[in-house]
């Protein structure tokens, strides 16, 4: 009979060595979703006569109204068929690719709504002031609109990112190997022996990662709102 310490000393190094995978499954969707979410957000704040507005509204509603795991399954089973129909064979793609695609789509829709909230909170006078001092539309976006939108949206983005980091654990259901996938594989290999200790170790590692992310975002919030402090 192994003591808990022996079980942990066998499993924890392996779990730690899979942190990069988890971070990859978190980071790549985050970056892609920021870009795609901005585009969706832009379509959602244009006028309602635009058919693009309605398409994006329906897409966002779908991704917000269905569970993430169902979206992952649909992408996992549906995307190869879709690409096959076009004439490519993607049977050598790993499960991680499908997870990243599904998470990117999901996160983009949440990101779009968060950014939209920030954009709508923006004072119209700021936009006009930027244009009146001779900024082009692009300059106005980069120097006036984007920073202020981000400032308002950042707190919600923090919550989204923490959720995404935690939801990378769902990736194991389609066979991607990250912290949870490794922990599960270990539990299976050891025929369930010490399963609670292994899961406990994974939980602590997730908690530390979330705490680090939270602290990083709090520093970012403080930095981005540093001019507010002076004004107050």
């Amino acid at each position, binding site marked *: 009979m192994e003591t808990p310490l022996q079980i942990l000393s066998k499993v924890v190094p392996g779990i730690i060595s899979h942190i990069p995978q988890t971070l990859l499954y978190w980071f790549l969707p985050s970056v892609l979703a920021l870009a795609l979410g901005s585009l969706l957000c832009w379509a959602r704040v244009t006028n309602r006569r635009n058919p693009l507005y309605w398409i994006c509204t329906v897409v966002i509603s779908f991704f917000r109204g269905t569970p993430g795991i169902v979206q992952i*399954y649909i992408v996992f089973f549906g995307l190869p068929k879709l690409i096959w129909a076009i004439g490519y064979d993607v049977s050598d793609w790993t499960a991680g690719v499908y997870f990243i695609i599904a998470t990117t789509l999901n996160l983009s829709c949440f990101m779009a709504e968060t950014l939209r909230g920030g954009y709508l909170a923006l004072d119209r006078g700021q936009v006009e002031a930027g244009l009146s001092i001779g900024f082009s539309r692009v300059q106005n976006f980069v120097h006036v609109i984007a920073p202020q939108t981000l400032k308002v949206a950042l707190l919600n983005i923090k919550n989204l990112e923490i959720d995404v980091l935690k939801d990378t654990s769902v990736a194991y259901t389609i066979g991607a190997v990250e912290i949870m996938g490794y922990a599960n594989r270990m539990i299976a290999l050891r025929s369930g022996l010490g399963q609670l200790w292994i*899961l406990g170790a994974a939980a602590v590692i997730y908690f530390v990662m979330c705490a680090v992310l939270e602290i990083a975002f709090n520093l970012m919030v403080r930095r981005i709102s540093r001019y507010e402090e002076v004004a107050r």
Partner: protein
Amino acid sequence: MNLDVDFMLSDLPTVFAALPSTLLLSLDSMFWALVFALICGGAQLARIPVLDKVTLVINTFIKGIPLVVQLLFCYYAVPYAVKWFDALVGRTYDPRHLPYFGAAVLALALNFGAYITDVVISSTRAVDRGQWESAYACGMTRFQALRRVVAPQVIVISLPNMTNYFIWLLKGTSLASIVNVTEMLTTARLSASDGYQFLEAYIDAAIIYWIVCAVIEWASGRLYRSAGRYLVAPNGATAQ
């Protein structure tokens, strides 16, 4: 693209038949999440010594670990817990009928209870202090003031956030499919495994989840508009 539309349509009633079990799991979890949140929120609002710090630490830890880990942890812990409990009451341990539904409810309730605690606390703090004071001035006790004046306002204020979390919870119950709980996603998977038509079955499940979430959101919007009619925001505007 070879999407089996016939199977998708014929499978829709099968998946839909499992909706009650998903809703039952959601409501059950929501009830216990509310109980957990009221205990934690109450302890923190009333500043009960020790208990308020303990609940804060527990909630922070729960919020930092994924729901999947919690579900699997409760799932694996069930046999140990049942064995211990059976030994305690002097029953023979029977590994054939383990309460996996209860384990899923426990995991979901703890996870969402930690989030709902914040809703309870912020909604209670959103009620103006003057409401408490005027209730006391009328001669009400603390409990009477809470029950007749403050709580009704807290319920209305928290309604949008509660609905949000309920929708999250409803979507979260789909994760219970990985721990042997028969709900909608499990049913979809089982119905598809004969002909490997998983995509069609999952699309069915997605459509049903989508409709249910949309209906709940719409209903809660209507409810909030009618219940929040008399709610006055600090700037004097009524809730829209």
